[in-house]
Structure formats: C-alpha cells, structure tokens
C-alpha cells in the first residue's frame, strides 16, 4: 500500500487536505507542512480535511492561511473537519447540509 498523505498549503493552517481516503495511523504531510507527518485518528474521505492540532469550539478554521469558517465543536488533532464540526461565517445554510452527500436537509422537496 502506498503511504497515505495529506497536503498542507500554508504554515499557518490548522487543517490539511487528505490526498486519498485516510485510515487511522500515520500520514505524511506534503506541501508546506508545519510537521513531517500527522497521526490520523478516524477515517477521512479523499479531499476532506484533517485537524493538524486541537481546535476549540468557536476557534477559526484556517486553510490557505485564511479563515474558512469556525469550529462548532471541540476538534482533536487527527480528526475529520467538515460540516458536522465547523461552519461558514457567511453561509448559514451550508452547515445543515448532509455531512456525507452534501444534500440539503432544510427543504422538503415533493
């Protein structure tokens, strides 16, 4: 099996992107990483984000060196970061989307 890896864009980031589906265990950090590897603690789909350090509720989520939202729950290093534990600072609707499919849950279509 190829070594699993994440991609960190900016040294200031507290999340990195999974370059393939991740399973618990070590993952190499590519890009401009603040550390050479990170311990993954749960399954994370490809393209999704992993916490590079512990993040408190209300704390900013930083990717590309810019704020992309804030934590709605406590997030531990190595955990999956997505709609279930973070939200946009602008778009009130997006954090209500289904965490796996991204489909709306707030509208009952016919």
């Amino acid at each position, binding site marked *: 099996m190829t070594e699993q*890896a994440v*991609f960190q*864009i900016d040294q200031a980031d507290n999340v990195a*992107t*999974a*370059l393939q589906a991740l399973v618990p265990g070590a993952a190499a950090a*590519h*890009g401009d990483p603040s550390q050479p590897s990170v311990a993954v603690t749960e399954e994370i*789909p*490809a*393209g*999704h*984000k992993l916490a590079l350090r512990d993040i408190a509720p209300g704390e900013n*989520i930083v*990717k*590309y060196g*810019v*704020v*992309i*939202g804030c934590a709605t729950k406590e997030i531990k290093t190595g955990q999956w*970061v*997505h*709609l279930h534990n*973070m*939200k*946009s*600072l*602008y*778009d009130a*609707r*997006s954090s209500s*989307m*289904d965490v*796996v*499919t*991204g*489909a*709306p849950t707030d509208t009952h279509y016919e």
Partner: protein
Amino acid sequence: MKEYQNVRWKGYLRQDGRKGIRNKLLVVYTVECSSHVAKEIARRIDSSDVDVVGFDGCCDNEYAVRLLLALIRHPNVGGVLAVGLGCEYVQPKHLAEKALEAGKPAQWFFVQEHGGTEPSIEYGMQQARLLLEELRQTPVVPMGFSDLVVGAECGGSDYTSGLAGNVVVGRFYDKLVDLNGTAVFEEIVEAVGLKDLLVQRAADDCAREQLAYTYDKALEYCKSVRQYSVSPGNFAGGLSSIEEKSMGAVIKSGSRPISGVIKVSQQPPKNGLWLLDSTPDPYWMGFGYTNPNDNEGLMDLISCGCQLVFLVTGRGNIVGSAVAPVYKITGNSGTFHRMSGDMDFNAGPVLSGEVTLEQLCQNLCDEVIRVCSGKPTNAEKLGHKEYFIPYKYQEKEVVVKRECE
C-alpha cells in the same frame, strides 16, 4: 523568465492593434429562429476556422448585443457573417456594419428575404466561402506574451483544483503579468469571505473602490437569494464552506496587484491583472441568475478580448468554446488519465511532490506558446465550440468608476 520575454509566434493583426492567435470566420445568428440556418452553414462548410455564436432572444437585450459586438471585434475573429430571420430586435445589418468598421470583411442577410431555409443555407455558404478567401489576406505579425490576454475559469472542481490546478494558473498569471501581458480572472461570487484579501491587492485607490463595490454587490446578491456558489457535490467532495471554495478559486489570480474591475464585453484598459465582474447588476427585473454554466463564464472572459482561456477542472469538464481555444487543466491525475482525450495539462504531480510548482509553471508557459503558435487544444481537436449568451442586465463599466476618476 528572460527567455520568455523574447519568445514570438505568428499573430493575426487587427485594425485596432490587437493580435489574434486564430483567424476565424464568425457566423452570428440574431435570434433562435435563424440558428438552424447559421449552424448548417458552418456544418456544411466543415472548417475549423468557422465558428458559430448567437443570441436566442427575440426581445431586446442591450447586454447581449454588446456581447455579440465584443465577439465580432475579438482579435481571433477575422470576418463575420450575420444571419437574421427578419423580425427580431438584434439587427444583423448593424452587426455587419460594426464588423466592417473594425476592419473585418462582413456580410449579412435575412432568411425571410432569401427564400427560407435551404436557399438561405446555400446563399450563406457562398458568402462564407468568399469571406474565408478574404481572411487569407489578414496581415501576419510577430506576437509575444505582452500581446496576450488570458482568461481563467474553474468548473467541475474537486479538492485538487484549489491545491494544484488553480495554483499553477496563479503562478502562470504572475509570470504573464511580469512579462507585461494581461490576465483576467472572474467568479466574484466565489470570493465570499475574501474582501480584505482582494482589496489589499488593489493597484491603486480606484481599483480598491471598484473591488470593494463589486465584492459588496456579489455578497448582497448571495444574501438576497440565500444561495452561495457552493453545491452538494462540493460538500461531498470535502469543501466545508463558501470561504474555503472561494480561496481555492481566487488562488488562480496569483499574487500580483489587481489593476481594477472590468465588466462583460469590456476590454482591460491596460495590461496587467484584472477581475472580470460577470454578475448581473441590480435592476427592476431583479438580479437574474449568475454563473448559469461554465460556457457562460468562458464566453464572458472571451468577450473581454482573451485570445486563450484556461478551464481548470478537477472532476473533468469536457467543453470548449467558440472564438477562443479552451485549454483544460486538471489537478487530479486520475481525471487526467481517465479523460486523456479531453484534458490538456496535468497539475496533479505537484501534490505528491514529484515536480515543483515552478517546473509545472514553466511547462504551462511552454504549452501556451505551442497553442498560441497554432497547436490545437484537445477541445479544438474534438470540435467543442460551445457558447452561452443569456439575457442579462449589466452596466457597461463599474459604476463607482466615475466617482473615483
């Protein structure tokens, strides 16, 4: 860098001084009712140098006419054949006259005055062949990066677009601007959350005002329709917020100062990096739609004079465009290999560290030189010549411009 400064390829010189990388005959229909005749003329002539565009609407729309005229004046276009039905608002005669004013051979006719479908197709083919003959007389001159206007759009994005595909375009844009060329990026509705970052990059006070105004307008639009430019597929693919998607999109603008904001069909007033605002302006009919599809965005970029457009696509969009070659870049190596007949460039290897971003950017520069020199993109080879011209209301230029000048 220095070696690119002296690179020259053959360009087609137009009366206004702009240079094209293609020399096309543009067949323009002025209403949906004459579209079949226009498309048949192009299909039967069967030349890669003949493209078709048109506006479907029978009601008047100044925006659409402005866009058709911008395409007629486009540097890749050498001649024009305008095909009307005979009762619509958009006047084919007017289009042909404007083409002639721009120094381009042009003809026009109404289907109703030429005996209906089949005789009109025959007549149109005769005219088209004569115009193609005339195109051979177009002066050919040396052209370099400082003559080039490049546009970039992303569509069918996945997580690699913001990590690799758009990143290499951003690096290329920096290089193009340093070479005194012109780069245009758009999708202001995908810049939500990044106002400070955009405004800080303004080249001067006027640009700063234009960027702030345009950003606020886009945000107001998103708020009022309670819809941000992020979809279920984006969330499923790992994006968690519009801010995250925005940054992945804006990164394709590179890092150079932003000279200002232009509107659809407006040429950049000078070389450098420009934001294209393609979103509708507030109007009595409401905002209307923004971003109806990727071809609309590509057409908007082309209307500003881009001779070449990049389409960055992680999942793999296959479209091309009329008027300008579309060069497709993916950051997803899987997509690149699975759709190798469509994708032109693989930025994926930068993610695994196999190549550096700088190396990748040089490869892209070399590819741009080849395409400008006439090498067809995959979309051109496959005959992709899509276009999309909707009804829209938009000001001719950014409204605040008058106040800050």
